[in-house]
């Protein structure tokens, strides 16, 4: 590939920590890759695995879910549920042949602008390594 592959990353960020963290990264002028499309959700526990699958189906090369650190959840325990469910989803997707580099989860608090940068960099780098997602993307071959 001559031109560098620029992956599409869809990120589901919790309203209270990670979204604020990403915001802080912006206001503090931290440079991080622009491949990421942020979707704000109220809590990482609200992220339905179907969201992740739909993102991949509709053209994402990687998905990131980020929430508050354990114990910091605005809704007390939403991120604990998220951790359990999405951990299971990760295992499942790996088993059916989705590169584990395409799906990440992170804890980023509202004050961790720099951690956000690292998380994004890691996610983008991994997605680049995995290449364009061709798996079960909604292809238009039979349209």
């Amino acid at each position, binding site marked *: 590939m001559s031109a560098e592959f620029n992956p599409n990353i869809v990120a589901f960020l919790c309203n209270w920590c990670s979204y604020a963290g990403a915001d802080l990264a912006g206001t503090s002028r931290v440079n991080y890759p622009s491949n990421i499309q942020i979707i704000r959700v109220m809590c990482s526990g609200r992220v339905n*695995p*179907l969201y992740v*699958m*739909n993102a991949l*189906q509709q053209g994402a090369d990687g998905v990131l879910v980020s929430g508050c650190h*354990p*114990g910091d959840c605005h809704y007390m*325990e939403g991120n*604990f*549920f998220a*951790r*359990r*469910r999405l*951990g*299971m*989803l*990760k*295992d*499942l*997707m*790996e*088993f*059916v*042949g*989705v*590169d*584990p580099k395409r799906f*990440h*989860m*992170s*804890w980023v608090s509202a004050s961790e602008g720099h951690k956000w940068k*690292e*998380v994004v960099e*890691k*996610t983008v780098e991994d997605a680049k390594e995995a290449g364009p997602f061709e*798996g*079960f*993307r*909604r*292809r238009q071959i*039979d349209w």
Partner: protein
Amino acid sequence: MKMDLEQLRKTAAEVVARDDVKYLVGWKQGTYGYRVAPGFVEDAAGAAELIFSPLCTANLATYLTLVEELPIPRGQEPDDRKVAVMVKGCDSRAVTQLIVEKGIKKDEVVVIGCPCPGVVDPNLLAEKYPETEDQVEMKWNGEGFLLLRGGEETKIARDEVLAEKCRLCRYPNPVYSDIMLGDPVEPWETDEDKGVEEVEGKDVEERAEYWAEQFDKCVRCYSCRNVCPLCYCQDCVLDRLNPTWVNRAVNFSENTAFNIARAFHLGGRCIECGECERVCPANIPLGKINRKLAREVRDKYGFEPGVDPDAEPFQASFKPDDPEEFIL
């Protein structure tokens, strides 16, 4: 082990004769060949048709939640009588899990447990001993099976036709029952789960290719979902059109999304009865996905569904020290 049919039929007749029992779901002889059909018994005559044999693969617990609830006409009382169901070891875990999830209440069912020395895989059996239109009888015979057809007796070795789920079975005896029939069977040494390991042994691309081939065959008849005793949502998210999570189109993309979503919704709930795999008209090895997930849940979270009726549902609970090494 000897399953005494007399005892089974007598117990069934007693149960259906009770005032607080609506009907009993058991197994009865199918219309031909190796088929066994679910039998809905309301009286002693029906109870006399019940059987329990190595051909009774179906998990009848699914009928506890399958019945449509219609509005009760004005002036009529709801029928609160219990439903009796006959269960094998694996099926009883489905009942337990349903109780855990409050899908059913303990006092809505009468569970008749049948210790099970393992059932056959009808496909394997038909491959080796072609099916004919004659009805057959099958029995457990020491370590193996005995096939009675048209006056002929055939001895079949256990390993030859035993269903895969039974080779991996760790709960041959019902874990939950109101009435227990016969003596418990001795649990056997379980094999390694070769099916899952084989897929795990592939690298990511090979796995993707393997499942692509499998999911491509899916015709989306939803029999895997409907037969599953634990898929009992009134309004399945995979059926919804507003919003549409999974398109109706049948292609590899939507089939994969459907199958992953189905498997995920059974994460920490699947009790490995193998029904989805048995009913699939496209022979997709769904059991492998379910068992893989069940194994992850067991190994990583120390949770096993359908064993303890007082447990918390897996996906609706958490432990502060759940593994999180995958989190950045």
